[in-house]
């Protein structure tokens, strides 16, 4: 089977101005920090970030995002100030709905019907649909040019497992990228992960960062 391990330089070359970048992580936990570094080093600008929260906050401070789609900005005052100033355009989406929009994008659906947020700001600008006698908000699917994912274990084909609650949105984000790039804590030979324990099948993964996993990650 082909190997999907790529050098840091090869990964940096994938980032370009104006792309939409999805990033895994929740409360700074389960973030692909080495891929964040690669993104910064690429110099790409005017990006859109889709993530559960502002776990990529340190990238926000660098001004590389023009727009973010998130559920919560956290309590970092600098982030809130950036958003309030209009330097970053923000679309807030309820977290469970955001997760389903990403999943829909990853599994070939056009959108989802949700009851969450009916009658609130979450409904603004969206279509309300009556279906089988129930009211729903029609929420569009989300995809990204590049998805950045943090895994615990990866093999050559890109089969992935996740560690603890570092899993969070990483599995659905892995499915929703035109190009999915993975930072794994451990790289293992094919067949080491029992097939039934694989969380993300390798078909969803395009590149795995080739990095030293002996320490520090």
């Amino acid at each position, binding site marked *: 089977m082909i190997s999907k391990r790529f050098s840091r330089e090869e990964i940096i070359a994938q980032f370009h101005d104006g792309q939409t970048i999805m990033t895994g992580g*929740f*409360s*700074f*936990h389960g973030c692909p920090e080495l891929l964040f570094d690669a993104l910064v080093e690429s110099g790409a600008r005017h990006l859109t970030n889709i993530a*559960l*929260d502002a776990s990529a906050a340190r990238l926000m401070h660098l001004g590389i995002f023009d727009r973010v789609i*998130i*559920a*919560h*900005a*956290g*309590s970092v005052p600098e982030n*809130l100030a950036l958003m309030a100033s209009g330097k970053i355009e*923000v679309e*807030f989406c*309820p*977290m*469970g*709905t955001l*997760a*389903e929009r990403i*999943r829909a994008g990853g599994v070939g659906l056009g959108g989802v019907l*949700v*009851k*969450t*947020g*009916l*009658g*609130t*700001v*979450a409904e603004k600008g969206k279509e309300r649909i009556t279906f089988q006698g129930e009211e729903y908000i029609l929420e569009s699917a989300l995809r990204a040019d590049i998805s950045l994912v943090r895994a615990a274990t990866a093999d050559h084909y890109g089969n992935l497992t*996740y*560690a*603890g*609650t*570092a*899993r*969070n*949105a*990483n*599995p*659905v984000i892995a499915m929703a990228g035109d190009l999915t790039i993975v930072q794994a804590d451990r790289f293992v030979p094919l067949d080491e992960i029992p097939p039934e324990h694989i*969380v993300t099948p390798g078909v969803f993964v395009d590149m795995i960062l080739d990095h030293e996993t002996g320490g520090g990650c």
Partner: protein
Amino acid sequence: MPGAMEDRRVIAKKIASWFHDGHVINLGVGVPILVADYITDNVVIQSENGLLGVGEAIGGLEPEAPYFNAAGATVSLIPGASVFDITTSFGMIRSGRLRATVLGCFEVSQFGDLANMARPGSYPGMGGAMDLVSGIDNVIVATDHCTRDGKPKIVAACTLPLTGVGVVKTIVTELAVFTVSRTEGLTLVEHRAGVSVETIRAKTGAPFRVADNLKEM
């Protein structure tokens, strides 16, 4: 003495007494999380970042610890706990598997409208709160009766952006327990020992009926 820890523990003990073997509950930050200190052994706590069976909070922000709750704190797990991705987490929330969610508030209206995501001039996003109040039938608000400067948090109509419309079923403060009807409004069902109905009326920004069988908390 709004906000005193002893008062908050009164609120938490009261709410914890309503849950029994096998109930699954989700607790928000602030006063609600104190409920975890008083639940019986077989009540299961869900955390929306992807945990069922949260044990004790065991530390602060340690990025490489295996298990985190939604507030970003390191936690232990109870035997039988499970870890899953964000769509599974909100899937169990939306599909009615949880007995209750306990949330804090900035304002709660007499008809159960909840505002708990934005103070005036600061809006960090709704996070998972809209999904929780929309997907879980029994929404309990656990809050100080008044703000730090003595203003009622229970109001005739909310002025802040709404997390949910008509979603709250019960309000518990250090002074009182109210049931909430979307059409009939508030009913005072319990009062703190030594606190008169008149005192509660003076500190509540909305009308309420008094239950025939009014009890002490």
